[in-house]
């Protein structure tokens, strides 16, 4: 009657990993850092028959800047937050990864994992979306890039095909950016509202995380800032429009009404941060 122990697949090259992914698709549960997966397993929400561990795949490592920043999918949050090249050229991104959970979690959790999990209450997806990042995705048949705003499609849902793996993330040169993590409870809690805002080449992107099934970005509202000075009145207007545009969810960290109020405050503050960063 007792089922056998699950199979553990541990490829040592990307080619091998992609072959296994193509063979098993959803039948093999990907193991990256395991911080989220271990909770699901311990709580018996998942009982996979097969694991596909990416820990031994060297092509998924690396943090390099060559105009753009490339983060390997298996790099940890901790590695990103501490890498000199990230701190120097992408300080807002480094800070965002540093705000996730605790050092214990960040030493395990990976860049690819946080994107592929598509958990609404994670911090990095909103910031990466604001920074116009693209996920680099491979399958046996080839490679494609998916803009972050198209990668996460809903609660724990992505636009990845069954045979695809995220191999890395490309982030264009950071302009001015900020990430505000509002926690309604403990400092180590996940965000009640996360607001990422970035100005690149005169173009504003505001992305609100943790309030809906996927990061919330409204290009038409951000467009109000095109060619305009981002003063207090414009900041407040954008904030108000975001608060109206988002249809917030309710969870242990706050009701929908409360989240709407906090979105209004935190978007406005994020835009103030951007202006202050410019003045500094």
């Amino acid at each position, binding site marked *: 009657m*007792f089922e056998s122990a699950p199979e553990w697949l541990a490829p040592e090259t990307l080619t091998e990993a992609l072959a296994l992914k193509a063979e098993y698709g959803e039948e093999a549960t990907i193991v990256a850092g395991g911080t989220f997966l271990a*909770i699901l397993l311990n709580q018996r929400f998942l009982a996979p028959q097969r694991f596909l561990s990416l820990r031994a795949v060297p092509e998924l490592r690396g943090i390099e800047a060559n105009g753009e920043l490339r983060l390997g999918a298996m790099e940890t949050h901790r590695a990103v937050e501490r890498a000199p090249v990230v701190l120097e050229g992408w300080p807002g991104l480094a800070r965002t990864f540093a705000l996730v959970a605790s050092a214990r979690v960040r030493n395990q959790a990976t860049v690819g994992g946080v994107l592929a999990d598509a958990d609404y209450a994670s911090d990095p997806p909103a910031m990466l979306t604001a920074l116009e990042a693209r996920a680099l995705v491979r399958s046996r048949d080839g490679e494609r890039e998916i803009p972050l705003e198209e990668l996460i499609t809903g609660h724990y849902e992505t636009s990845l095909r069954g045979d695809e793996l995220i191999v890395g993330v490309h982030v264009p040169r950071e302009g001015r950016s900020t990430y505000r993590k509002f*926690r*309604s409870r*403990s400092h*180590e*809690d996940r965000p009640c509202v996360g607001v990422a805002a970035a100005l690149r080449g005169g173009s504003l992107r505001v992305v609100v995380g943790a309030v809906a099934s996927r990061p919330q970005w409204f290009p038409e509202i951000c467009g109000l800032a095109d060619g305009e000075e981002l003063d207090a009145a414009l900041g407040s207007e954008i904030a108000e429009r975001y608060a109206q545009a988002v249809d917030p969810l309710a969870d242990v960290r706050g*009701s929908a009404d409360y989240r709407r109020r*906090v979105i209004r405050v935190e978007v406005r503050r994020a835009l103030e941060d951007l202006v202050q960063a410019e003045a500094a």
Partner: protein
Amino acid sequence: MTDPRVTGAVRYAQDVELEGMLEARILRSPFPHARIERVDTSAVPAGIVVLTPGDVADLGMYGAQIKDQTVLACDRARFAGDPVAAVAAATLREADEALALIDVDYEELDSVFDPVEACGQDAPLVHDRHNVSENDAAYFGIRPQQGTNVCHRFRLRQGDVEAGFAEADVVVEETFRTAGAQHAHMEPHASVAQWENGRLEVWTGTQTPFNLRSDLAGVLGIAEDRIRIVCPPMGGAFGAKTFVRLEAIVACLARKAGRPVRAILERNEEWLTLNRHPAEIRVRLGARADGTLLAKEVECWADTGAYADCGPGVAQKMGFAAPGPYRIPHVSVESRCVYTNLPPNGAFRGYGQMQTVWASERAMDILAERLGADPLELRLQNLLQEGDRYATGEELHDVRFAECLETAADAIGWRESRQGKGLCVLMKGMQTPSRAGIAIEASDDGTYTLRCATAEMGQGARRAISLLAAELLEVDVANVRFPDPDTDLVPYDTRTTSSRSTYIMGRALVDAVRDLKENGRRGYGEVEIPGGLDPDTGQGVASHHWHQGAGAAEVRVDEETGKVEVVRLHASVYAGRVVNRPGAELQNEGSMIMGLGTTLFEAVDIADGQVTNANLSDYEIPSFMDVPVALTHDLLERDGADVHGLGETALPPVPPSVGNALASLGLHVTDLPISAEAVLDAVDRRAGLREVPA
């Protein structure tokens, strides 16, 4: 000295390994209230031991104060999580898989989840009858109200409360609520049982070995001396590891299996095993225009969940602590312990006092505001003094409330500015009556062994008692041994609760050392504390001595989001005499940090009778990042004073200190925890922006 807790050398109950031991898992009711029609185990393969209601229906019932519990839910499951069956197998995996093969038919029944509603005429009855337990944990007059969900009603009466209110110039009235909380001890509940020649041996993380032995004897129908309880150190307990938890189930599984059985709870099961009583408390407080308190009326509903456990005791302590450390001529208290179809609630650091101190000390600040008085001065004006009689009629000695309160106020610069600052003063009872015995054995190698039932749960009791013994024996503490409590070897002790061990064991130890010095090889000492209250009038001796404390907090509020930051937090605790300073300091700091969780974050969330946040991600406890940089405390001493217990005193003052600090900004909150959302509502109320119920 390398701390064995750091090196991993400590052997907890879950580390006990016995030859041929099986691992147990528990099948729980998915329904908050349901008749159990049929338990079908036919699909479970041979070789797996299954315990069903049929196996235990003929056994005795147990319960520390009300005998209301069977080993498994037999006729009815009374909460979502009530154990209905259990299995033991060679591996946990096999046990888990076997659980899934047990088929139970339920017929759902009406249920009730609110203690005030549960007192209503039409509320479904959680239990048909309330039988008071013979366990000596039922140490006071328990007053079940048959035919209702009230399993204990405590009343305290002094003076004529209506006459008092008639004389008052100002009367304030408010309803307060506190949430259920999970102890969140790091080490889960774990128990191992084996039978040897008809004798039961249990290794378990417990604060109450003798109460446990007594209840198990009643369940199994055997004499107490046929049971041996061994208590390895615990990785935290905070009241959760009291009375019967897993022990009856593992004992019955082990008997049926003919092999030792071990059970270790999963983290989510902790929320289904024991939590803190949620409570509703209504306070009416009257004073003269000059601030003199005249009358206080308090009504309490303590939600004990589906089984009483020590809920009657919690409700009683809520009740007798409700007047607070003030001279009030007219007092009326009614406190009820109420059944609902929720997981059982029991002892939790602060034991009922947190709930009524929250209500009472918030009410004091509301009164101060109405009177236009300084909350510190109003308290000082009314505090109980040396030789005063408390509302129970007992005379108070070594009274230090004013000193506690003044040091707390000074610690946050109260007299410089009151903006964003709040205070609290409290008295907390200690288990009365109670009894403790301790034996000391001298060895030829110059060492001494303590035979003592005091359980170590991280609070440092072994260290404190060993230090006291070393001092009395005039030897180095390294020569004092303190093995795990074992009911075969240690004298009787009421239990390790109520911040009583250092005090009472310390006193018994003095006699034991004297006896040893007279007799050479072995000494024995015993202390018995008399007292107790009449449950219908609240008159008598509530506490042999009172734990006295005060708190002070300063907050910063983001008024656009409601987020509260506690920037300064202080507790003053009367220690009498400090035995182990590092341990005492850690108790104060730990109590305050735990109190912050109660104040700001922690609530057992329930939807349709189901706990919805039974994990440490959705249920938030404070992290070190939440601790104020200015976290300070005082351990007040006096030459020649007795040792006073201090394991809990610094917890209850935290919520009112923070709540009153918010009130100083015009932000009134009545319910715990104080969510950011509730503070934002209070901001709106202050501005008169919209009608937001408190």
